[in-house]
Structure formats: structure tokens, C-alpha cells
């Protein structure tokens, strides 16, 4: 028995079958571990951890307006994450949802700014343009991957920077509001170009309902459709998928177009919702946070409904901590990263379990006994 085993008499052992219980428990374990880390962090920063917890998680949600904000911030996260889950399951790593979000906002916002007289059709046209913009942007990565074998991870990410610079160019240059006191902003959208609110007194709008509907559609696609089945097989057992003749290229196109379309929709919903115009900082990293949302939601379109609410609470908590505790707003990003780490570690116990290492005593005869038993 080595020294290590004396100090730590536990060993990882592969389970016979993946544990279903653990696959549901692991996000909870990760969330609790994140909270404990938060307690320690707040204490280390000299804040009363209980009060800080209150400011971070309880106060922002203690009234109807706060609940509205929770749903409002969950909306773009949910929209992006629903698309990502479908791609990630097929091992297609679109990590540039942030860029598709921006292009969606530009495309939909362009319709709002330049196509006048659409009346009641303005919003549907904007939403369509937004989704199409996101699809086209992700489609670049799909084309390069299927045609030139180029890593979609790096391409989608590079396209994030290009999209953001493009938006910055538009709102600083040709699309800047001439009456906007030189602020880098477009004109405000008209009233018929803003998504209707769900209830008065809060900012959450019908995009949240749309996101929920998309999550349900996504769940149906994943579990009931043949295309969804092919993508799952491609993710779980690429060799089996190839043997069955499932087209790799079709999966990559589908995964990127779906996730890009969802992210583009999230972008236009954000600018046609709480923001109401185009400006350079339309997203506090929703597209990246959605990656974490997708993992915490177990890569399931319905799971991400819960995890997007959790992530939204982290955003709200970060804002409230910034105002009341003078903590930097980046505490949100920190918590997001910590959450994902804990989740990945906790996921280990889906396929492994801890077992006590039994002390092995030298028993020459035991070998014979074992073979006798085995035969």
C-alpha cells in the first residue's frame, strides 16, 4: 500500500453503467460548490458572507420587477443555449454564438432602421432577418469546415471579433444617429419595432415565451426526429454514424445553422427588446455564457431552461453586488467559470465512483483460491 493510499484510501472505479442519478445531481452539486466558494470568496474580501449572499441572490429576486429581470436576462441565454446543445451533442463546437448574436442584431436592426412602412409585419421581418443573419454567420464556419476541413472552434471564435468590429463600424459610422450627440448609437427603433412586454411594470417581453417554445421544439427535434437521432449518434459514436452512412457534412451544417439561427434570434430580440437601438455593447457576453448554460443544462434543450435561469440570476446578482457591495461586476464572469469547472469535475461521478482501497495482505494461497472460484 503506497503512502498516497494511506493518506487517501479512495480510488476511482469505472461504473458498470453511467449513473442517471448523478447526471441529474451533478449540476446541483456544482451549483452548491459554487455557492460555498462564493461564501469563502466574500469572506476573504472582508464582506459578511450571509449579507453578501442576500444581496447577490435574494434581493434581486424579491419583487415582481426582479422576477421580470430574471426572465429577461434568461431569454438570450436560453435562445443561444438551445441551439448550442443541439450542436454540442453532435460534437460540433460552435463557440462563437456571441458573434452570431451580434450579426443577428445587425441584420434585424437593419430592417428596423431602413425598411419603413412595414406596420405589423415589421417585427416578424426583423426576427426573420435576425435568425437568417445568425445562420449566415455560422454558415461561414459550416462551409469552411465541410469544404476545407477548418476547425469550427477557431473559425466561429474569430468571427466573433469580426462581427463586433463590424457592429462598431456601423454605429460609429454610417448607421450613427445624426441627432445622437455623437454617441455611437443608431436611431431608436419605432414603437411597432419593439417586442411587446409580457406584463406592465417589468421589462420582460414575449421573446421569453418564444425561447420557451424553441426549447420545446428543440427537445422534440433531439428526441423524436431522425435528423436529431443522426446527430446524437454522430456525437456519441462517430464510427457507428459513419458505418450507418449518416452524412457528417449534413450534421455539421444542421448543427451550425440551428445554433447560429438561435443566436441570431437572441441578438435581434435583445435589441428589439430592452435595448431598443443598436450600440457597440449590446451583449455582456451572453453568447459565451450560453456555452456554460448548455453544459449545466446537460446538453438538453429542456435542461437549459433551468440553467439559463440560474445563469441569469448570476448576472443579476453581479449587478446588485456591484451597486451595494462595491464588488467589481466581473465577479459574474468569475462565478460562471467556477460553475463550469465544478460541473465538469462533478460529471466525473457519472461514469466513475469512489471506492475504498482495501489493504492487500500477502497471501500466496489466495491466488489459487481465486482461480478455483473463477473456474
Amino acid at each position, binding site marked *: 500500500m503506497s503512502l498516497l493510499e494511506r493518506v487517501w484510501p479512495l480510488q476511482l472505479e469505472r461504473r458498470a453503467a453511467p449513473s442517471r442519478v448523478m447526471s441529474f445531481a451533478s449540476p446541483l452539486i456544482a451549483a452548491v460548490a459554487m455557492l460555498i466558494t462564493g461564501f469563502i470568496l466574500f469572506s476573504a474580501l472582508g464582506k459578511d458572507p450571509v449579507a453578501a449572499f442576500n444581496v447577490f441572490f435574494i434581493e434581486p429576486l424579491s419583487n415582481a420587477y426582479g422576477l421580470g429581470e430574471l426572465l429577461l436576462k434568461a431569454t438570450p441565454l436560453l435562445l443561444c443555449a438551445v441551439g448550442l446543445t443541439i450542436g454540442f451533442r453532435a460534437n460540433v463546437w460552435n463557440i462563437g454564438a456571441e458573434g452570431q448574436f451580434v450579426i443577428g442584431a445587425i441584420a434585424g436592426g437593419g430592417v428596423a432602421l431602413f425598411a419603413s412602412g412595414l406596420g405589423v409585419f415589421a417585427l416578424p421581418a426583423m426576427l426573420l432577418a435576425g435568425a437568417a443573419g445568425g445562420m449566415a454567420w455560422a454558415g461561414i464556419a459550416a462551409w469552411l469546415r465541410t469544404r476545407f476541413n477548418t476547425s469550427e472552434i477557431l473559425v466561429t471564435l474569430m468571427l466573433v471579433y469580426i462581427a463586433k468590429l463590424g457592429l462598431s463600424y456601423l454605429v460609429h459610422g454610417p448607421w450613427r444617429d445624426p441627432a445622437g450627440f455623437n454617441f455611437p448609437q443608431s436611431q431608436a427603433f419605432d414603437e411597432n419595432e419593439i417586442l411587446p412586454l409580457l406584463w406592465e411594470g417589468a421589462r420582460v417581453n414575449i421573446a421569453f415565451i418564444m425561447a420557451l417554445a424553441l426549447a420545446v421544439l428543440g427537445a422534440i427535434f433531439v428526441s423524436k426526429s431522425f435528423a436529431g437521432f443522426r446527430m446524437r449518434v454522430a456525437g456519441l459514436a462517430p464510427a457507428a454514424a459513419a458505418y450507418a452512412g449518416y452524412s457528417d457534412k449534413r450534421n455539421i451544417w444542421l448543427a451550425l445553422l440551428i445554433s447560429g439561427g438561435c443566436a441570431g434570434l437572441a441578438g435581434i430580440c435583445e435589441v428589439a427588446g430592452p435595448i431598443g437601438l443598436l450600440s457597440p455593447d449590446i451583449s455582456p457576453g451572453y453568447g459565451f455564457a450560453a456555452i456554460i448554460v448548455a453544459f449545466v443544462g446537460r446538453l438538453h434543450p429542456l435542461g437549459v431552461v433551468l440553467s439559463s435561469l440560474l445563469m441569469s440570476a448570476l448576472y443579476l446578482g453581479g449587478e446588485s453586488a456591484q451597486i451595494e457591495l462595491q464588488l467589481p461586476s466581473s465577479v459574474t464572469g468569475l462565478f460562471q467559470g467556477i460553475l*463550469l469547472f465544478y460541473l465538469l*469535475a462533478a460529471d466525473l461521478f457519472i461514469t466513475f465512483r469512489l471506492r475504498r482501497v482495501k489493504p492487500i495482505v500477502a497471501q500466496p494461497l489466495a491466488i489459487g483460491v481465486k482461480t478455483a472460484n473463477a473456474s
Partner: protein
Amino acid sequence: MNLEQWLPIVTSTVAAATPLIIAALGVLVCERAGVLNLGVEGMMLIGAVTAFAVGVSSGSLLLGYVAAAFAGMALSLLFGLLTLTLQTNQVATGLALALFGVGLSAFVGQGFVGLPIDRVPDLSIPFLSGIPMLGPLLFRYDAVVYLSLVLYLAVSWFLYRSSAGLRLRAVGESPGVAHSIGERVILIRYLAVLFGGATSGVAGAYLSTALTPMWVEGMSAGRGWIVLALVVFATWRPLRVLLGAYLFGGVTVLQLHAQGLGVNVPSEFLSMLPYAATIVVLVVICRDPRTILLNQPASLGRSFHPDH
């Protein structure tokens, strides 16, 4: 155009390429051992904020660089624990590391935004720096520039001339075989991951103490991802990393000098150049699947466990 006009372009190209070289050589070693760590962006940012914070507080840039290397190693150790010991998915864990590094560096660096720091001084080598033309062109950079070249020589020698390098490549190509002839695959991979962490940290340090001597949230601006593309572009060979980095450095600098050269394009489009160039070179290199198949370490991104 004469030398006086070209000189600043050459020297700033070298400066822009230096962090890319340092980080990419570490990533190269790590990937040659079969480990794909996508968290370079996060480790660079942590290195940048650590070097800046330690440099400002202690007044010693050297101490800042050492601290940055250790900070990068600490993050990469976390990555190693998860992917090598706990067998998590390397892609997902690398993404987590990148996001975590961005958040953590912004959090830690909050108090250091806007503070001034003295940039790493340029060397003045007796006699050599004084040579006309060649002096300013070759012998008046800061110490880190020369460090990046030494690192290139060291990594090339290590990979192709040392037995340890041969063993590391064996682990990356075929961990099962390496294990069966008695190599400690996991240990070697840990060391490679730690080396990648240290170089990423130092590369980040160069950003905040030399390239733009200040701390700004997310100041690496995607360089960590460009480094990953650079290693693919180099088909996992050190010399090509060096050449590729100077190429990228040139593209980055072009955007700064283009307006001076009379190119009338909005600055945003010029700023897109490095990212667009990254996509273009990836397409050029990956176009033929055989290039990747022949050069990519065979076990890149796959977990290995000695027992199964």
C-alpha cells in the same frame, strides 16, 4: 521608402510576434504530448494581470514575469487535474479554462486599471547596438524578444534532438504504446501541460508590460485563440511557428501603420485583419486533409487512462 520609415514597422512586427511565439511554442509542446488545451486565452490574461500587479506592487518586472509563469502554471495544473487525472473532455475543460481566466483576470485586475507601469527596457548591447542599420534592426530589442528566440532554439532541440523530446512525441502519437514500453504517460502530459501554462503566462506578461504597458480587461483580444490557430498553421513544427508568428505580427502591425501609409479604410476593417488572416491561413493549411492527418499528433485531444 527608406529605412527610417521601415524600421518602426519591422521593430513593431517583432514586438507583436513575440508573445505569439512564446505562447505558441508552449502550446506546441503540449499538443505534441497529445493534450489540447483551449484555455490559452485565459492563461494569457491571468499572466498579463499577474505580471502587471506584481510588477507595479514590487517594482520588479522580473518578479512579475516569474509570477506570471507560475500563475499560468497554476491554471494549467487545474486543467491537468481535470483532464489528465479526472479524465474530463479536453475541449469542454479548455473552454471552461478560457472563460474562467477571462473572469478571474478581470476580477483580480479591477484595482489595477489605469495605473502606469514602466515598460520592459530595450537592451543596449555594447558595440552590437551601435552598428549602423543592423544595430537598430537586430540588437536593440527588449530581453523578452531574445528570450523568445532562445525558447525557439530550446524547444526545437528538445523535440528533435533529446531523448526526452522523443518520449514526449511518442506519448502524443501513441500513448498506449508508450505506456506499454514503460513511459509514464500521465506524468509526461502533466509536465507538457505545465510548460504550456508557463509560456502562456509569460506571453500574457509581455502584453501588459511591453506591448501595451497597462492592464485592461480582456486585453489579449483573442491572441490566445490566434496562437492555437498558429500551431495548426505551423503543422506542429517550431520553425514554422516562428515564421507564422512574424507573419501574424506583420498583419497586426499593418493595421497600425496602414493609415500612415495612406490607406484610407475605416480603422475597424483594419482591426479585423488579424482575425480574417487567421481564418484564411487555417483554410490554406487545412484544405488538404492529408496535411493535418500527417502532421497532427495522433492522440491529440483524446483522454488516456493506463487501466483501460
